[in-house]
């Protein structure tokens, strides 16, 4: 590892779950000093699976371990005035506060943006919420599915004859985390030059709208409601139990190659399939031809064959496919990380390589692992003070 991109950046993370911690993880991987502040019960991600052997353990959550690499960790109870006072001291010389939780939470504790900028004018406060710090939905209850609904993602996903379909996993939360990462850095770039910090907001609902644009554009430009379509990116089951999705059948540039790849070159001259619009009009026939063809194929083999002809198609990869992928192995994407409680495990890495600099994942902190280092070493409390703070449920 060479020089770190964000060496010298000091981040205080008061965030749980996926989005806020993801931003902190990337800051940490790029060399920032990231201090994660957890409530005494810990980030809720510690209670979410997966766990080895399905046995819940606060230090062994796969979600938490993955999202919190490269951070130090302390516990601090922000439900106490003492806890808030300690956070204030920590923020006095921080560059970025990464907050994730309900809107208005910090404000209600005297840690709103105005108070914080009086304390530290250079501080960039990144707020990660469901709906933002203002607006009529501010206090709505949210989460992944609700964000996908109100953000317009759900309406576009799935089959037209069925209910809208959620994009799997925690996708919008991850997207929000990347936006938080970016927003914090833009504001920090400004703060480092001018001494002016500011509040940066991202929200799950707005990220979901950021995640597409077909719906609003179709309405604004054409007065049409963009709907779910079966023919947009049809998925075919292959003979070996895999899947291939084709999103490119409409593009004229790929149609001749596709007809050749599936052994039906005569279809190029078929007037029913002449151009994008006519292939849409005769979708049922296109679909039948492709389904019949793929039923005899092997998914990964087709992927390589099509890519050799410069056709941008993929095949469905599951975690074992990815862990065994020669491409991922060649790039060293997966990293083995040792953790005092969870042991050695293979983790997904960071999806980019840096030529001059490097990145280092590190590992996730144990709950309260750095209490003594931070409270005694940094803030000057004695070990006896720590006993008091623990007994009074502050840490």
């Amino acid at each position: 590892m060479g020089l770190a991109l964000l060496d010298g950046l000091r981040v205080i993370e008061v965030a749980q779950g996926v989005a806020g911690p993801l931003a902190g993880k990337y800051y940490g991987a790029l060399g920032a000093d990231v201090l994660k502040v957890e409530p005494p019960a810990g980030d809720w991600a510690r209670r979410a699976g997966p766990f080895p052997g399905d046995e819940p353990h606060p230090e062994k959550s796969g979600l938490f371990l993955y999202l919190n690499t490269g951070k130090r960790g302390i516990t601090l109870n922000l439900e106490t005035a003492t806890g808030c006072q300690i956070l204030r001291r920590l923020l006095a010389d921080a560059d970025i506060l990464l907050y994730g939780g309900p809107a208005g939470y910090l404000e209600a504790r005297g840690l709103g943006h105005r108070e914080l900028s009086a304390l530290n004018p250079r501080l960039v406060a990144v707020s990660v919420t469901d709906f933002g710090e203002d607006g009529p939905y501010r206090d709505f209850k949210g989460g992944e599915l609700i964000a996908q609904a109100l953000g317009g993602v759900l309406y576009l996903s799935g089959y037209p004859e069925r209910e809208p379909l959620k994009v799997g996993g925690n996708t919008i939360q991850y997207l929000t985390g990347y936006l938080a990462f970016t927003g914090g850095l833009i504001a920090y770039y400004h703060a480092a030059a001018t001494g002016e910090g500011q509040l940066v907001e991202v929200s799950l609902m707005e990220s979901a709208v950021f995640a597409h644009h077909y719906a609003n554009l179709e309405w604004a430009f054409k007065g049409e409601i963009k709907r779910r379509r079966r023919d947009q990116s049809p998925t075919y089951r292959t003979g070996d139990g895999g899947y291939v999705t084709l999103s490119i059948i409409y593009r004229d540039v790929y149609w001749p190659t596709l007809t050749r790849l599936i052994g039906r070159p005569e279809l190029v001259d078929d007037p029913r399939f002449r151009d994008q619009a006519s292939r849409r009009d005769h979708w049922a026939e296109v679909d039948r031809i492709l389904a019949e063809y793929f039923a005899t194929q092997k998914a990964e083999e087709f992927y390589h064959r099509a890519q050799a002809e410069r056709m941008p198609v993929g095949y469905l990869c599951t975690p074992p496919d990815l862990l065994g992928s020669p491409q991922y192995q060649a790039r060293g994407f997966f990293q083995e990380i040792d953790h005092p409680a969870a042991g050695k495990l293979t983790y997904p890495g960071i999806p980019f390589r840096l030529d001059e600099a490097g990145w280092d994942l590190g590992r996730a902190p144990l709950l309260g692992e750095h209490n003594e280092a931070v409270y005694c070493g940094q803030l000057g409390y004695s070990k006896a003070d720590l006993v008091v703070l623990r007994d009074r449920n502050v840490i």
Partner: protein
Amino acid sequence: MTGDGRLPLEGVRILDLTHVWAGPLAMRVLGSFGAEVIKVESTRRYDMSRGEAVAGPGAGRVFIYPNADPGEEPWNREGRFIERNYNKLGLTLDLTRPEGVEVFKRLVKISDVVVESFRVGVMANFGLDYPRLRAVKPDIIMVSLSSQGQTGPERAYGSFGAVLEQTGGLAAITGYEPDAPTATGTFIPDPVVAALAAGLVVAALHFRRRTGLGLYIDLSQRETVTAIVGETIMDYVMNGRVQRPMGNRHPTMAPHGVYPCAGEDRWIAIAVEDDSQFAALCRVMGRPELAVDERFADVVGRLRHQDELDKIIADWTRQHDHLELMYRLQAAGVPAGAVLDGRELLADPHLQARGFFRELDQPGAGRYPVSFGGLKLHRTPARIIRPAPRLGEHNEYILGGLLGLSGEEIAALERAGVIGRIPAAAVRREVEASDG
């Protein structure tokens, strides 16, 4: 607003060679915070999002033109192109020609960042890979946003968003049934890559400011998708378990689904986190007895009896308006969201209050709302500085104003076809028409 009204990235010049969605969106975000983004295309190979040079039959349906009308210059009025590329300057430059490469290198000398998303090897073929850019400008920052990275056996493979969902591992957990994975309807990898890539550019700018050094960033879009399904990898590593699609359901929450409402294709999402929210849902439904029904009283029971529970909820939601129901449920503390379509998004009171959409005056197309939000910086808010560039719109400004080429030199480049304002395919078509 800051004292002098400066945006954070003012003074940063970016040469944007990216096309389609992820790269252009990332650079539009940086442009909205003050970077001077020069979009570099050529008349032979322009950004595919512009659509066809000559609109074929049915183009009005396939592309997003104002009133479905391709107009005389369809390449300057496609909605997706406009939304992904406003706040940029437009330059055409044929990089397959030595004169084009020469001009590009002169631009690199006065720029801070070069971003590209070509197939691996294309920049090297142009003679514009990182070592050669660095030779021109030692502290240049270069970012490559390729499908699978610059190394490895599949480095030359191409992709669109729907491909990345598959090859990155997101499609494996998206679908109605465990054995029926499907694509998302929104090609979500592109905006995810955009959100990360924009930040990486700024991280590199920090690095350069501190060290004086440039940097090469080699991003893999496929790996970016895998990074957003990290917990499925961890589950496999820990338990050998391959997670499958679970429709709209959640492993530990119930009810958790999308339910029909009154009207055509109207839906509401409900995601109950705990027992008290379930009791509140039952009260709003007028069915308080369900909260103590032994099938549904605890979360394990609700997860086991989801089919019955979903049917009961759907029978109720079907009688109600999706928006009205959302307000009632939210007032009772139940996480609920109306499933909004494009028209509803534009009219949504929350997005309006947040200023998510902004009207953009696009010459040749008209005034349309475009996405603007997602990143709200309170002191230095994003701005709409200029519309999306027409093909080659700023050739004179960039070549003459920034590089100091003479009018004669610029005219020579135009005569040689190195720069231009009209797609080569459209020119060919005009010649054919005049011949025939």
